[in-house]
């Protein structure tokens, strides 16, 4: 599997580290214990298209948001994660 880093271009999987689901959002302050438990521990085991965080640690060290089909490894989009410096991708 290869990921096209929006900053570096196409790179091999070995340069990236997987974080996981990019959908889970931190609950608001004052959220119930169940909501926090869900956020910290519960994960969907998605079979199909999924939004994920990947870290380009062997390259530009940017966090990326990758849309990947977990059944086929087909990647439909890669974009810088929120907070990553440049708004404009290099390539």
């Amino acid at each position, binding site marked *: 599997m290869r990921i096209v880093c929006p900053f570096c271009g196409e790179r*091999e999987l*070995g340069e990236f580290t997987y974080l996981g689901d990019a959908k889970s959002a931190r609950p608001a302050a004052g959220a119930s214990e169940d909501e926090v438990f869900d956020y910290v521990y519960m994960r969907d085991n998605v079979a199909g298209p999924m939004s994920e965080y990947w870290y380009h640690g*062997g*390259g*530009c060290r940017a966090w990326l948001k990758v849309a990947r089909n977990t059944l086929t490894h087909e990647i439909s989009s890669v974009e810088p994660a929120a907070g990553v*410096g*440049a708004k404009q991708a*290099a390539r």
Partner: protein
Amino acid sequence: MAEFSWIARSPLEKALVVGGYGARGTTAGVSLTEIRNFDLIQVMARRGKAAELAKAAETRFGVTAPNAPNAVRVPDATLIWSGPDQFLVLSKGGIHAMEKLSQAFSQSASLSDQSHARALISVSGGKARSMLAKLSSLDLHPAAFPAGTAAATAVDHTSINLWRGSDRPDGQAVFNLLVFATFAESLWHTMLDAAAEYSVEISHSEALA
């Protein structure tokens, strides 16, 4: 009280043995040269200050700092892209050392002195690309990686900043790589192993190519 004397030493001081290595009886296919005693500053835009940094860099260096994987040469420095809104300044003799650049970029960027934190190795020769192909997954063919191209990448699981500088006088491509000092010896031995079959010429130099 203990007296400390801080003397800059190369991380390859022990591993690097000047002369030939590997296959004999042929001209060296790979030249490995460690460049010593350089100034290297990491410049990273502060949050929301990318435009200010670009402006300050242009004022300081007279060129646009790289905002894509490239290395830009100016007469007294090389600016090497290292990621979004960040680049490395490689120079010599204190012209662009920390105290100089911290003034130039005080409003726009965070700086970190990497002068003694990295080793700089220059790889060239007729078999340089064949040797690097054993270690790197990047396409370094001139069509894909022309002079001035840079990459933040990993070779042998070691993070490096790689860029192609100006060609040697004999026309051979020169690949420069910056590696963390503590990984330099490991990478050096890996490159020697990869290059041995092509015959290696080993040297060190004070001059930035």
